[in-house]
Every structure is written in structure tokens, then in C-alpha cells.
């Protein structure tokens, strides 16, 4: 066991345990905070996979953007004295069954598959080649993504407006 393995198992443990906290916690605020640790754990896994640009993007966009949005949503849609989350009693057993079967099948397949011999290259920075790829081979999806973000922005503003304001 070298340092890489120890770090991997530590971060994998953090990620999985906090993800379990997200889906099992009864309090929505605790779930949101667990999600924070999950995102950080995934960012650490990206670093271990030598994807430096993606790790930073993960922290900036997920922790700085999506999680703040989620916390705002929690804040705006919950009364202060009623934060516990309604659990579906009837759906619990099928959900455990389906998630368990999916997890078992995936892990079984993944551990028994003979993956081709990994070529584990030394670390090299990815920001420059990623930018080059975005501007050459992936320029159409890149532009579409910018249009999509604009549409999502305008759409979110219009949807979230109050109904009364629209009738003025």
C-alpha cells in the first residue's frame, strides 16, 4: 500500500459515506451539507485521476454554484419550524431492492471484467489540451452549451417570477 492507495481509500470512504448521508438523512439541511462533502470527495478523486482542471471546475461549479442554489431552494421553500423530510414508506422496499440489484450487478460486472492493461502515464496538465479540444473538435457542443445556459437563465427567471407580476 503506497500513499496513492491510502489517499484513494480515504477519499472514496468520505465520498461514499457522505453520499449515504445525503440519501438517508431525515433533515434536509444535513443532507445539503453531506452533499458538500460528497462534491469535495469527488473533486479529490478527480485530483487522484490527474484531472486538475475538472477538479477545480467541480469545486467552483458544484460547491460554488449548484450547492448554493440548493441551499437557497431549501431556505425559500421550508418554514423554519418544519424542516424534516417526508419519507415514502411504501416506496422504501422496492427502492432498496432496485438500488441493491443495480449496485450488485454493476460491481459484479466491474470486478469480473478483464480491463485492458492500463497505460498509466505520468501527470501532465490538462487545462491547455482541454481548451484546445473545446475550440476545435468540440466547438459546436461548446456553442450549444452557451446557448443552453442563456436559455436556462432566462427560463429560470421567468418561471420563478410571481404569477401576479405577469398579469400587470
Amino acid at each position, binding site marked *: 500500500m503506497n500513499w496513492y492507495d491510502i489517499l484513494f481509500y480515504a477519499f472514496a470512504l468520505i465520498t461514499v459515506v457522505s453520499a449515504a448521508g445525503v440519501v438517508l438523512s431525515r433533515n434536509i439541511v444535513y443532507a445539503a451539507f453531506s452533499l458538500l462533502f460528497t462534491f469535495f470527495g469527488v473533486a479529490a478523486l478527480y485530483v487522484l*485521476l490527474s484531472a486538475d*482542471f475538472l477538479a477545480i471546475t467541480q469545486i467552483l461549479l458544484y460547491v460554488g454554484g449548484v450547492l448554493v442554489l440548493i441551499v437557497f431552494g431549501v431556505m425559500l421553500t421550508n418554514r423554519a419550524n418544519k424542516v424534516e423530510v417526508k419519507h415514502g414508506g411504501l416506496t422504501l422496499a422496492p427502492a432498496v431492492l432496485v438500488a*441493491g440489484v443495480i449496485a450488485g450487478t454493476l460491481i459484479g460486472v466491474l470486478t469480473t471484467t478483464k480491463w485492458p492493461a492500463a497505460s498509466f502515464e505520468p501527470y501532465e496538465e490538462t487545462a491547455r489540451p482541454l481548451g484546445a479540444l473545446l475550440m476545435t473538435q468540440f466547438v459546436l457542443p461548446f456553442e450549444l452549451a452557451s446557448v443552453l445556459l442563456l436559455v*436556462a437563465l432566462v427560463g429560470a427567471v421567468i418561471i420563478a417570477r410571481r404569477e401576479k407580476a405577469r398579469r400587470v
Partner: protein
Amino acid sequence: MTVHVGLTQFLVVSAILFSLGIFGVMTRKNAIMVLMGIELILNAANINFVAFTRFGLMNLSGQVTAVFVIILAAAEAAVLLAIVLNMFQQINTVNVDEVDKLKN
């Protein structure tokens, strides 16, 4: 556990994350909690892309795809939260099973 960490270990972590996300989406009633489950699923998919890129089964386009997945997740979260806010103002609930205005 003396197995050297390779592609399989990363994929197993991603599979566990995916199953937890599925479980969350299926059991939660609160729309924001469902969104959290979806984010877990998208993160699991992203770990797969990056791991395949790192271990030489995909070239760098795997990481580009992961960037696009992150962009889509951000846009989706914004739109979903706008819908949830509107739902809360109109019918005063965020539980997805109580939104049955169109029934009957």
C-alpha cells in the same frame, strides 16, 4: 486490502454513488432531495468518464464530456429550483406526490 488501486476501484466507487443516487431519487418526496439524488448520479457518471480517460481507454474527449455534464447539471439545477419555487408559491408544497392538480 492490498489490491493496488486501478480502474476497477474507481468504477466501483462510481457504481456505489450511482446506486445511492437511484435510491435517493426513488425514496424522497421532497423535490429538492430528488435533485440531490440526480446530482449524485451525474457525479457518478463523471467519475467514470475521468477514470476511463486516465487509464487510457478514452482520450481526452472523456474529460471534455465531463465538462459538458457539469454545465448541464448547473443549468438543470437552476431550472428545477425555479420550478420548485413557483410550485411552492402556487400550491404551497414541495412534495412531488402532492402535486396532483391535473388529476381528474
